[in-house]
């Protein structure tokens, strides 16, 4: 498909990750890595709870919600009772299982995923407003974060022909 002539090729994607659950963060990481793999420019912008994905202490401890998640199923496909999701350890167990299943498909942990994206030329940014709000500093963030930027800076990064902004 890449070989087909298309005058509206995507050349750059700017991906915004505003949520900190496993599936939200991985959606952003997979999209960004996929873009880099296709030879596109990729910029990842983490804001609000998405900052967990680039905060050293939290990045490899992300969870998936077991309460308020109607798509949650037991292994085998049976419904997952909401009351069960409240029990201590259940969310952690489910999250570990999610990560294990991704590992089987060669989807790496968050820090290694950021390694892969930046090795391919992708860039990672943190939102200044959210960093200030959560009282974080540059040293709390992963070494893969190139900068803490404002929304104005983000739009500047997103400028150009064939550029797309994706909010996951």
């Amino acid at each position, binding site marked *: 498909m890449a070989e087909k002539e298309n005058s509206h090729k995507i050349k750059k994607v700017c991906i915004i990750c505003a949520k900190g659950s496993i599936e939200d963060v991985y959606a952003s990481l997979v999209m960004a890595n996929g873009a880099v*793999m*296709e030879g596109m420019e990729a910029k990842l912008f983490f804001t609000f709870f998405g900052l967990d994905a680039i905060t050293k202490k939290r990045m490899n401890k992300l969870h998936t919600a077991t309460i308020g998640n109607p798509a949650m199923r037991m292994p085998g496909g049976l419904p997952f009772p909401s009351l069960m999701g409240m029990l201590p350890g259940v969310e952690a167990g489910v999250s570990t299982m999610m990560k294990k299943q991704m590992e089987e498909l060669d989807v790496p942990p968050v820090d290694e995923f950021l390694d*892969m994206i930046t090795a391919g030329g992708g860039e990672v940014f943190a939102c200044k407003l959210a960093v200030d709000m959560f009282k974080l500093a540059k040293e709390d963030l992963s070494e893969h974060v190139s900068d803490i930027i404002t929304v104005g800076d983000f739009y500047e990064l997103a400028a150009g022909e064939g550029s797309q902004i994706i909010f996951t």
Partner: protein
Amino acid sequence: MAQKTIAGKTIDVTDEGYLVDASQWNEDIAKELAKEEDIELTDAHFEVLNFIRESHQKGEVLTIRKVGKSGKTDIKGFYQLFPGGPLKKASRIAGIPKPTSCV
């Protein structure tokens, strides 16, 4: 499916230029395919290509991460060897099917 004469040999290729039969591949074909991507193959390229062909023969699903852990190159090196889409380009040059992995 189409046919293509390359490096003095007629090979079957898909619409996107991937070899249909990996056994039709040889190093001269690889060099010609690489030229189409503006890549001049070196020993470092061939080490990666051979790794890719071996893992394809073993029936493994190829990912960037696996190439990065192959010991032949790291991920940064892989992007430098095959700029602008390493997994696809390397697969095409290695004569194996288009990669189906999302990572």
